[in-house]
């Protein structure tokens, strides 16, 4: 960093940097920090006893359980997909490779609520596969499978996007050396590739987890928000907030905020390692 040199360059006043830093800190405090701090402050205004009571409310506990279940299923699936996609794109050349990269990134440019609408138009009662699903008595919308599918859509690029650039930058020499030494597929992956990509993989998985537990727009389309059945934690927060149970909503929101803060800590820790 050459910043100090600039700071003390002769002839340059220090007033401008100080003004800009002050403005940046002030705006960020109002704009980003205040909403963050407010969540915990509002959740705890009525004391810890109320806070605990709000978190352990049966409906909230059910929402926490459902959201955990979604994450436990979606994140490993996403890790498997992300590794497969990164391995394929970084280690092989084939026609349509670049198109595949674009396709994997589609969920980034589609608003989650549109993703939810897409799923409803596919699996809903009036959807493309709706009549077939009804005939076979299969329920995807307004049930767990729909929530899982939309969450998978929204989080699809997260692991691949972290792992792929790293694998491309590292090249395949080490893995090829392992092949010449007689290593088999899984041996190569677990002994050579995985140690090389583990931090990127961890970060991708953490991002994916945070996104999976916090998904709101897409899930609210496909879940039907059935209390005590298909309400994930963000939907439960909406419900309580609209029911004017503000303290309860913020108590539930604080749990998701802690997960968001964990993401930031992991990111900072991994940046130190790189």
């Amino acid at each position, binding site marked *: *960093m*050459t*910043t100090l040199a*600039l700071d003390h*360059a002769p002839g*340059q006043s220090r007033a401008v*940097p100080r003004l*800009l*830093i002050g403005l*940046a*800190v002030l*705006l*960020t405090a*109002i704009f*980003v920090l205040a*909403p963050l701090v*407010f*969540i915990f402050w*509002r959740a705890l205004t009525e004391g810890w006893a109320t806070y605990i009571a709000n978190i352990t409310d049966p409906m909230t506990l059910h929402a926490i359980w459902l959201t955990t279940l979604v994450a436990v299923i979606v994140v490993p699936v996403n890790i498997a997909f992300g590794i*497969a*996609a990164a*391995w*394929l794109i*970084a280690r*092989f050349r084939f026609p349509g*490779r670049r198109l*595949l990269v674009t396709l*994997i990134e*589609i969920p980034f*440019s*589609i*608003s*989650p609520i*549109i993703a939810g609408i*897409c799923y*409803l138009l596919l699996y809903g009662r*009036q*959807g*493309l596969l709706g009549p077939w699903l009804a005939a076979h008595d299969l329920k995807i919308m307004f049930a767990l499978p729909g929530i899982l*599918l939309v969450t998978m*859509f929204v989080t*699809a690029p997260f692991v691949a996007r972290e792992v792929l650039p790293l694998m491309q930058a590292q*090249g395949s020499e080490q*893995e*090829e050396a392992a*092949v010449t030494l007689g290593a088999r*597929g899984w041996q190569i992956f677990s002994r050579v590739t995985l140690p090389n990509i583990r931090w990127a993989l961890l970060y991708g998985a953490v991002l994916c987890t945070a996104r999976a537990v*916090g*998904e*709101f*727009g897409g899930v609210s*389309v496909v879940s039907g928000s059935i209390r005590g059945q298909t309400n994930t934690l963000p939907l439960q*927060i*909406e419900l309580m907030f609209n029911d004017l149970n503000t303290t309860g*909503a913020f108590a539930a*929101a604080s749990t998701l*905020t802690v997960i*968001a803060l964990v993401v*930031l800590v992991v*990111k900072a820790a991994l940046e130190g390692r790189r």
Partner: protein
Amino acid sequence: MSGSAPIRAKRVLPGFSLSLGTTLLYVALVILLPVIALFLKGAEIGPTQFWAIITAPRTLAALRVTLTAAAVATVFNALYGLLMAWVLTRYQFPGRRILDALMDIPFALPTAVAGISLTALYSANGWFGSPLQSVGIELVYTLGGVIVAMAFTSVPFVVRAIQPVLEDLDPALEQAAMTLGASPFAIFRRVVLPAILPAWLAGSTVAFARSLGEFGAVIFIAGNLPFKTEIAALLAYIRLEEYDYQGAAAIALVLLFIALVLLVLSNLVQFRAARYLEARA
């Protein structure tokens, strides 16, 4: 795709069919199939009906609210984001790393959580709402609230787009300009701005696209009054709840179309910038 594996006549590494099969299956089932469903359902509507849905007064009003709020939020973020990127890359000060980490909060925080927090903060008895109300400004249930929510969720796109470019830009260039007697403003306009402009534009475009599709953060603070603070994404949602799947599909297609155009635009800006930099190097 620089730095990727070199082309080989024979595939040395194992796992091609397994990774190809897994990736294609996932992309087809999870990503492509639902998007295709939207286009097929959209095609069923027919051009006349589609036009009628899109030009209905309530749809037009929702699109206008969405575009206006997103545009204002983007202008704010372009300036605030530039300031943040500049301060974070050019100055050393205590708390810089914390300030940098805070720029990830809007990404990391679930949108519904951000939505209720902003609503409570700016409501009449909130931390910011009561002082603002005493000077006659109300944000909750107004277009201003929609703008605040959109700006909150999309600011990291601008900051994180400019930051790496500014980090790569050698401060010696600015120092050289200074020794030649250029004023700070002239240095910024002639030296810094040309280098960061593509990233700035691309980041702002992505921020705009994100604002157009934002749902969770907006619906709480917006109050969702038809013709006043109802955003397009919410109108599509309402159409679904009314079992008007065609209405929802048409609005979703319009939003998707705008998002894709913006994505292409942002890629084009970055592609041109990359070519310019390559030509100069």
